[in-house]
């Protein structure tokens, strides 16, 4: 088992021995692994990852988002019914967002949310039995970045979940490197939706396409690609 960490595993593989850590004899199985009696079975094709002390999970390529509690997502408001907005977050069912879940929202002072707006929110409730629920305030009641994303000039790209995890991970410097050269504003939703806004539509297109295509690039490749874009941009 220890040898197959980092290797590609396919659904149905049986993972036999585990390197239980010293302290606890237990092993934590993340997404993609399932315990069947004594054996551990792989349910999703991908690369087996291991993190000290005893966490194993499968890193697979997926576009369909499975809601998880506490994650930030970008949703599209589809229906305004009564005091609850229904928001599409790309999961199995649309999430609900109460009008009170905004900073400073009261019965009379309702937030200005229209059908079709983009909302950056945190998942308060997310499990397989209940409808996912969103909120746009942090525990302190402040919006701290959450809320309705203004629709003037920004663009949203639908990508796979891996890319989002990649650009949010510390050792990937695409955002920093891009940011140095083209000032832009971005919101990254764990459900594979990235909102980007630069000064002009031309820059926004360049940044959006750069991020979208950087999925299979190493940092070096990303840096060269961005440098080429900037030259092209300058000669535009």
């Amino acid at each position, binding site marked *: 088992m220890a040898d197959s960490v980092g290797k590609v595993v396919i659904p149905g593989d049986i993972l036999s021995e585990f390197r239980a850590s010293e302290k606890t004899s237990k092993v934590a199985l993340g997404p993609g692994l399932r315990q069947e009696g004594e054996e551990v079975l792989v349910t999703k094709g991908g690369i087996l990852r291991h993190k000290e002390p005893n966490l194993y999970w499968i890193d697979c390529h997926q576009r369909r988002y499975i809601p998880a509690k506490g994650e930030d997502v970008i949703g599209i408001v589809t229906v305004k019914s009564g005091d609850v907005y229904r928001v599409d977050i790309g999961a199995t069912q649309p999430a609900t967002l109460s009008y009170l879940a905004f900073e400073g929202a009261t019965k009379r002072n309702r937030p200005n949310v229209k059908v079709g*707006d983009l909302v950056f929110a945190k998942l308060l409730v997310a499990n397989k039995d209940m409808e996912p629920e969103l909120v746009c305030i942090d525990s302190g009641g402040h919006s701290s970045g959450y809320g309705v994303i203004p629709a003037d000039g920004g663009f949203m790209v639908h990508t796979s979940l891996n890319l989002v995890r990649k650009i949010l991970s510390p050792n990937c410097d695409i955002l920093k490197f891009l940011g140095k050269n083209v000032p832009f504003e971005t919101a990254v939703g764990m459900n594979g939706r990235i909102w980007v806004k630069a000064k002009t539509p031309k820059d926004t297109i360049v940044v959006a396409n750069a991020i979208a295509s950087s999925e*299979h*690039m190493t940092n070096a490749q990303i840096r060269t690609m961005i440098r080429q874009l900037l*030259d092209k941009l300058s000669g*535009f």
Partner: protein
Amino acid sequence: MKEVPMSTCEREFILKAIRDRKRIDGRQTYDYRRLKVSFGMERGCCIVDLGDTKVLAQVSGKIEEPKKNRPTEGSIIINLELSPMASPAFEPGRPTESGIEMNRILERNIRDSRAVDTESLCIVAGEKVWSIRADVHVLNDEGNIMDAASIAAITALSHFRRPDVSVMGEEVTVHSPEDRDPVPLSVHHMPVCVTFAFFDQGEFLLVDPNRSEERVMDGRMVVGMNMHREICTLMMSGGMLLVKEQVLRCSQIATVKVAEIIELIQRALDKDAQARQAGEKCGFAESVPTNKITTNRKEATAIDTTAAAQQASQVIQEAGPVDKPMSNMLVQAPGTVQIGEGLVNTWDVDDEDMESEEKEGREKSVTNGREAVATSKPTERKRPVKAGEGTVSHAEGSDSEEEETVMLFQGDDETKSTEEPDSTALMQPSNSDKPAKKKGKKKKAAQK
């Protein structure tokens, strides 16, 4: 199952980009996406890839009794299937209104304009005639199904061969392909549709809208034309108002586009015919490019970097070591694994400066927005089989496992499109196994 809803933010952005004469995938206003026509093993089966929109057409024939009022004519039936596989918006069962409209346009474009001669399909007048049926299935909908379907239908019809038939008095014999080789249909002309999308009440105009542009457009116009600049069908219905001049301008643009598309179809047909004569393997399996990862790879789009030509040499030094052939898995960097031969460097260079013919005529038409998407591997990847420099193969089709498909070249050396007003910067030759040729081209571009 409804589609993913379109947020106002995306809608506003796309419209704003169009008003600035830009498109989110970097094409010009009159550019087609990468058009690829490939044929199956059987005669009459072809797949058309227009960008990511994929359409399969299959032609079949059977002998039937003719209709009473037309005893000496065979029948051509064209049916467009919008299968739910293509997009979540299509429902199985009865076709939606747009499905019916597309069916009718296809039918009018090919049948009413008598592209295929039905008189020649008659075997015994009044009793036995050929009934040719073209089934077009949409496999993936990334916008503009109409053009892809019309190209697929007419290409399949021209590619189809029906068994030869001989009539002796009453008795009709159908010859198997062994003793008499099958006969092609007599296709007079090849009508192809060009779709124009209109925005802001007809003020802005785009060719070949992709899916997001289709969802944002006010209305569309479909112009079906053939080589001889004859309009075979024209359909403009839906929520917007046009003026006469716009209609005439669209038909002129369509003339140019149709000429290129038909030229590509003709080349693909000839290429397939050569391959079949030479007895080489042909069919879809053959036409799948073997040296690409088909799953995770983003479509390679070329980078027009005429400005960066001076630093070409400096980029090459930085290139890392050559990776090994496909056989084993190679971990390039933490977090990524590479199965297969690895990505292709599409450092291809457009050596033509296409001025877009709009009024403001910028001095260098840069296919903007087309960022260095391709994973520009620093090194020129050598093909494992052929030795390096010497193979400046002139004709693409020379080496055997040359892929079946023919790309609509924009900067192609041999058949460079002459002075047509705007170029279809459709697709760079992303064919991976022609490194030698590419290098040569870059030098030429460098001298310009």
